[in-house]
Each structure stands twice: as structure tokens, then as C-alpha cells.
């Protein structure tokens, strides 16, 4: 690690020696210069996010994204990036003078990254889980959104000069900013602590889905309001109603259409028999809808999210996600880093107290806003606090909203800094709070609660004599399902747990020592039984083939006889061939 850091530092030190003065006249040269700067910027960003991400996750035990964000702050135009570099003839990250402190080229990368992020976030949305637990989940999620929104909005009206009513775009933005939960951190902790299917865990996950959707619709409304406010003064209530209806309408129509057409679309695309093609076209559609939603007066991420959501119920959702992992790993850290770069420390001086108050409000908003509906839905105080704590972390959606606010001039650099500060504080205090909150007894008042995840599923058990044989048969069964165009995804890292999906059929296959268990919905039981039967019958063929094989003893003798003997037949033949070749020459 130290050596790598040293090597990078040396490389950075010697680069100027080879650099020539690139800043000379001409449009073409100007373009080359801009691209050269961009390449240098990307080089520094790509290296910095890796190093900071590593330091944060390994040594500080914090999520990587926080490291990437801090990397942006450190190398950005308001810190190290603002140092004049003679070999470039400028600062590496020069403030552009507009509302954004980074170059349009670099911001372009961040925009593409935000589209990837939201497309994947839509793709990961677990609609069935949400629908199954939507009752309590929606209640809790909605409570959190409403309370945080009003607290954020009210605080802006109370404390910010020039913000005099609840409908002021800045107040609306600050309200929206405090609503979006990033459940990724919570999900990781819940899964590590095996609390994912606990009543609290399930409620948090369902609430987070609603949180995302409502947060994004709110953003659409706020962006719409901000755009109207930009063009002329006060906004009548009627207009806000129209904007809200338009935003909600766009979201609803495209989501419903998307879910209806998603399966048909992927079925059509599957004919190409290439996952690369399918993934490429799906991502292309995400970009297309992102552009369309921006054209419709909403934000780009809404189109991207809706495209993801539309495809989330298809059997290729996991495959698309997997195929996009490389793109994600490259672009998304750039996004977090560029967002970090936009933090203007000087502008934050005047709003630091407001920032602290806003952070406190953002935390209280979720604990109270989610906690009270949870209390009303059968959880005790402990359970309600767990749910509130689980909804604390803020992430990419907060950043994107803040970025949009900054780019459109609705919020200034100070408020942008406040958003980042809230994100950092909320995300850092959430994990220890959540872990601590899960100590102790049940968080549910009612004693018996039905088992949630395995509810109503049929289990088909297959018992085999040895583990090795079970491993082999498991792989055979998976092959048969793949041949039937099922998408097989390994879920557990350390245990053989698989999800097999095709259209609306979902099968869970788990192997425990010598037993393979397949779980599926009752309506698919026959299908699964028949398919597994095919796999077992194919094994019969295989065993027959084995019987016909040369006896293992004879094969063993054959292998041994050449261990210490002369060259093998193949080698001899090769040697003879080369001899012949030489002779011919």
C-alpha cells in the first residue's frame, strides 16, 4: 500500500517535467487543451477516490462513498485543486465562475453517473416486497418524508434571510433535501446482523422504497417550481398544483407503462441472445428517458429511475445490474468526488450554525417522522427507534438534489455545503446508532408475527448420500434451469444460495450439506418438480456414460506409466513434426 502511494506521488511529481505548454491559441488547440485538462482531472479523481475510499473503509470503518466525497473536498477547487500549476498554466480544478465550480466537461461525467445511479436504484427496487409490506412501510415512509420535509422547509423560513414563505424555492429545496433516505448503508447493516427479515428490517426496506419514490416526485415538483420562479416572481398555488400533477402524472404514466411494457421489451431484446446487447439498449433507454423527463420540465434522474423501475420486475434485472457493474464502478465514484468538490469552505463560514441546526432537524425528522407511525403500527419504543435510525442515512439522492439546486441557482454554495454536511453526519452516526439499537429484545409489541419471507412458499427437498454428490447435482440442476432460459444468480457469498428467475417465476435454491431445497410459489410447484425431474433423469444418462468409460484402473495405469517414463506420445509426435519441418527447410 505504502509503495503504491509513493509510486503515485512520484508519478504526479514527474508529470510536469514532460508536460509542455499546452495553453496556446486556436480553437482546435483550445479543445485539445480542455481535453488534456479533463484527462488530468480524471486521472487525479480516479486515483484519489480509490485511495480515500480505501482509507475510509479499511481504517475509519466508514462507507467508501464518504471517502469519495471527502476526496472531492480535498482535491477540489476550494482546496488542493485550487493551487496554481505552472506546467498546466492554470489550476487543475479551476472554478468556472458560473453557479457550478467545476468544468462542464467534468460535470457531464457526474450527470451520466447520476443517471447510472438512479437507473440502477430503480432496477434494484423490490416492488413485490414493497407491495407485500406496503401498509406499514408506506405509513412509516410517508411519515418520515412529511415530517422531514416540513421541518427542513420551516427551518429555512425561520433562519434564512430572504426566505419568507414555505413555497420559496430555497425552502422547498431544503425540505426536499432532508427527505431522501439512502437505505444502502442500513441494508448492509441489517444483512450483517441478520435482521433483514425482522419486522423492523422489512418495514425499513418497504419504507425506503416509498421514500425514494416520494422524494423523487417531490424533487420533480420542486424543480418545476424553481424553474417557474426563475422566469418570473411569485408562484400562484394553482401553478404549483399543475406542476405537482404534471410531475406525478409523468411518473405514474411512465412507471405503469414501463412495468407493463418492460417484460415485452426484454422478451423482444432477448431474441438477440446477447446480454451485452440487452444491457446496452436498456441503458440507452435510461439515457433517453432521462433526457425526455428533463425536456418535460422534470429532472433527468426521474426518467432514469422510472426506466430502472420498469425493468426491475423483469427476469433480466439482475443480469443488467451485473453487466453495468463495471460502468458503475468507474462513473459513480467520480460523481461522489465531483459533488465533494463543490463544497466551498469559505461560503460555509456564514451558515455553519444553520448547518448544525439543519442536520439536527434532518435527524429528528426521520426519528420522529418514522417512529410515530411505527409506534402506531404495533412497534414498541425500541422498534420505533430502530426504524427511525434505519432511515437516517442520506446518500446519492440528497447529493443529486443538492447538485440540481446548485446548478439551477436555487441554492447557493453555502446551502450546498450544508447538504453535504448533513449527509456526512447522518451517514456517520447512523451505523453505530442502528447497531446499538438492535441490542435488546423484540421491537414489536404483538408477540406473534407471521414469518414474513418464506410465507406461503412450497419447499421441495432433495436428499443425497454425500456432499460431493450434492454439489454435483446442484450444478446439474442449475444447468437445466439455465437451459430453460432461467437467470441464475448466486445470492450468498459463503453459502450455496441461488435465485432462479424467469418471467414471474422465482425459485430459491439452497444447499445445506447433503440436502438441496427449492422454494417457490405454489402455482409454480409443478413446473419446478418437472424441471428437477428432467435434471435427475439427465444424470441417469450421465451415469450410463460413466459405466461405458474405460475402467478407472486402466486409466490410472495409463497415467502412471508415463510419469517416469519417456516423452509422452503427443510430445514425440510434436518433436517428430519439428524434425521433419527442419529437414524440409
Amino acid at each position, binding site marked *: 500500500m505504502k509503495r503504491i502511494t509513493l509510486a503515485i506521488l512520484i508519478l504526479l511529481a514527474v508529470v510536469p517535467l514532460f508536460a509542455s505548454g499546452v495553453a496556446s491559441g486556436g480553437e482546435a488547440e483550445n479543445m485539445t487543451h480542455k481535453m488534456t485538462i479533463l484527462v488530468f482531472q480524471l486521472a487525479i479523481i480516479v486515483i484519489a477516490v480509490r485511495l480515500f475510499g480505501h482509507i475510509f473503509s479499511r481504517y475509519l470503518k466508514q462507507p467508501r462513498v464518504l471517502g469519495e466525497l471527502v476526496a472531492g473536498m480535498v482535491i477540489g477547487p476550494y482546496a488542493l485543486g485550487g493551487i496554481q500549476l505552472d506546467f498546466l498554466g492554470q489550476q487543475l480544478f479551476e472554478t468556472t465562475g458560473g453557479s457550478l465550480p467545476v468544468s462542464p466537461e467534468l460535470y457531464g461525467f457526474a450527470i451520466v453517473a447520476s443517471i447510472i445511479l438512479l437507473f440502477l436504484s430503480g432496477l434494484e427496487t423490490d416492488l413485490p416486497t414493497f407491495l407485500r409490506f406496503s401498509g406499514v412501510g408506506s405509513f412509516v415512509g410517508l411519515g418520515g418524508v412529511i415530517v422531514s420535509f416540513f421541518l427542513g422547509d420551516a427551518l429555512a423560513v425561520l433562519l434564512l434571510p430572504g426566505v419568507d414563505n414555505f413555497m420559496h424555492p430555497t425552502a422547498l429545496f431544503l425540505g426536499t433535501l432532508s427527505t431522501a433516505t439512502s437505505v444502502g448503508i442500513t441494508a448492509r447493516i441489517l444483512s450483517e446482523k441478520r435482521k433483514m427479515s425482522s419486522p423492523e428490517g422489512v418495514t425499513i426496506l418497504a419504507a425506503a422504497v416509498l421514500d425514494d419514490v416520494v422524494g423523487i416526485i417531490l424533487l420533480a415538483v420542486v424543480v418545476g417550481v424553481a424553474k417557474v420562479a426563475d422566469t418570473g416572481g411569485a408562484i400562484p398555488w394553482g401553478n404549483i398544483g399543475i406542476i405537482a400533477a404534471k410531475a406525478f402524472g409523468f411518473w405514474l404514466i411512465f412507471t405503469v407503462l414501463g412495468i407493463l411494457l418492460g417484460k415485452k421489451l426484454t422478451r423482444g431484446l432477448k431474441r438477440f441472445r446477447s446480454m451485452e446487447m440487452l444491457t446496452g439498449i436498456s441503458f440507452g433507454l435510461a439515457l433517453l428517458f432521462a433526457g425526455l423527463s428533463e425536456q418535460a420540465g422534470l429532472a433527468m434522474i426521474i426518467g432514469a429511475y422510472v426506466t430502472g423501475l420498469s425493468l426491475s420486475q423483469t427476469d433480466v434485472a439482475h443480469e443488467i445490474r451485473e453487466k453495468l457493474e463495471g460502468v458503475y464502478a468507474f462513473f459513480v465514484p467520480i460523481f461522489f468526488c465531483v459533488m465533494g468538490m463543490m463544497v466551498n469552505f469559505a461560503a460555509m463560514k456564514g451558515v455553519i450554525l444553520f448547518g448544525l441546526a439543519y442536520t439536527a432537524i434532518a435527524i429528528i425528522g426521520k426519528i420522529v417522522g418514522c417512529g410515530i407511525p411505527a409506534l402506531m403500527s404495533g412497534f414498541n419504543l425500541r422498534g420505533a427507534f430502530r426504524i427511525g435510525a434505519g432511515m437516517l442515512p442520506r446518500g446519492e439522492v440528497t447529493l443529486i438534489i443538492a447538485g440540481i439546486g446548485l446548478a439551477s441557482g436555487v441554492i447557493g454554495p453555502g446551502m450546498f455545503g450544508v447538504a453535504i454536511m448533513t449527509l456526512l453526519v447522518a451517514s456517520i452516526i447512523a451505523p453505530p446508532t442502528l447497531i446499538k439499537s438492535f441490542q435488546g429484545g423484540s421491537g414489536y409489541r404483538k408477540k406473534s408475527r407471521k414469518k414474513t419471507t418464506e410465507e406461503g412458499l412450497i419447499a421441495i427437498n432433495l436428499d443425497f448420500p454425500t456432499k460431493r454428490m450434492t454439489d454435483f447435482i446442484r450444478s446439474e440442476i442449475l444447468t437445466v434451469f439455465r437451459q430453460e*432460459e432461467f437467470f441464475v444468480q448466486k445470492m450468498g457469498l459463503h453459502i450455496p444460495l441461488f435465485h432462479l428467475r424467469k418471467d414471474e417465476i422465482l425459485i430459491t435454491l439452497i444447499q445445506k450439506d447433503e440436502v438441496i431445497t427449492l422454494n417457490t410459489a405454489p402455482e409454480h410447484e409443478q*413446473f419446478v418438480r*418437472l424441471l428437477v*425431474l428432467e435434471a435427475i433423469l439427465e444424470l441417469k444418462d450421465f451415469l450410463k456414460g460413466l459405466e461405458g468409460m474405460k475402467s478407472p484402473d486402466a486409466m490410472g495405469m495409463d497415467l502412471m506409466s508415463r510419469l517416469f517414463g519417456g516423452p509422452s506420445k503427443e510430445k514425440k509426435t510434436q518433436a517428430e513434426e519439428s524434425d521433419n519441418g527442419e529437414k524440409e527447410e
Partner: protein
Amino acid sequence: MNLKKLLAPKMVLTELAGSTKEEVIENLVDLLMESGKIKDREVALACILAREQKMSTGMQNEIAIPHGKSDTVDELIVCIALKKEGIDFESLDGMPSKIFIMTISPLNRSGPHVQFLAEISQLLKEEEKREQLLAAETAEEILKVFIG
């Protein structure tokens, strides 16, 4: 799956002539020949027999689902027939088989035959449907049980 598309009256027989397992399988293959979609009868027969050799397709509740995969067909073909007095089809529960559903699907391609058989078996789980089927006098009445 569109059962209507797969099942036509000419692919349904109310009474099979054969009285042994082999004869019934031959009768069923001949019935499938009616579709005009089998290139070689012998190949079709061989693939069904090969599957039977691995394990009998005589299920419970008087149902048998002889099936096979072969390139002698380009798409899934299906026929349904009855043998009301029942024959020994080496069934799972030892009972004589009376309801026969035969499918042949192309080799090396994910076949919808599993889906088809799953749907049929789901349907015939209901005793009432089986009774209706065995009481059917015409091909149309048999089809009605499946298509409604």
C-alpha cells in the same frame, strides 16, 4: 401458455385402440403424426421410448404424460387421448392409466413442454376436471376441459 393454440380437435382422441403400454405409445405417436409436423415417425417414437426407459411417465390419478425431445419436430406438438378402461403404464401409484398427454419438443432448445406439462398437471390436480375428462364422449368435450 396458449393451450388453445396448441390443442386442436384433430389432436384429440376419445378412445385409444392399443391395450399395452407400447401399443398406446404407438397410437399416440400416430395421432401426433396427424399434425403434419413430424418429419420421421420412427425418430419420434424412439425419443418417447427412450424417455420411458429412463423412468415411466405414468403419474398418479390415472394420468400419463409420455414425452420426448427430438429434432424431428421444429416446435412443441401435443396430443391428448383417453383409454377409459385403463392400461398398465407402470404408474407411480400402481393404478391403471386412463388419461394420456403426449408432447414432443425440439432438442437443444429451451422447450415450452415443461411449462405445458406443468399447466396440464396443475389443471388435472382437480378431481372434478379428471371426472369431466373421462366422461367426455367427443373431442370437443375433452378440449372444453382444458380450454374452457
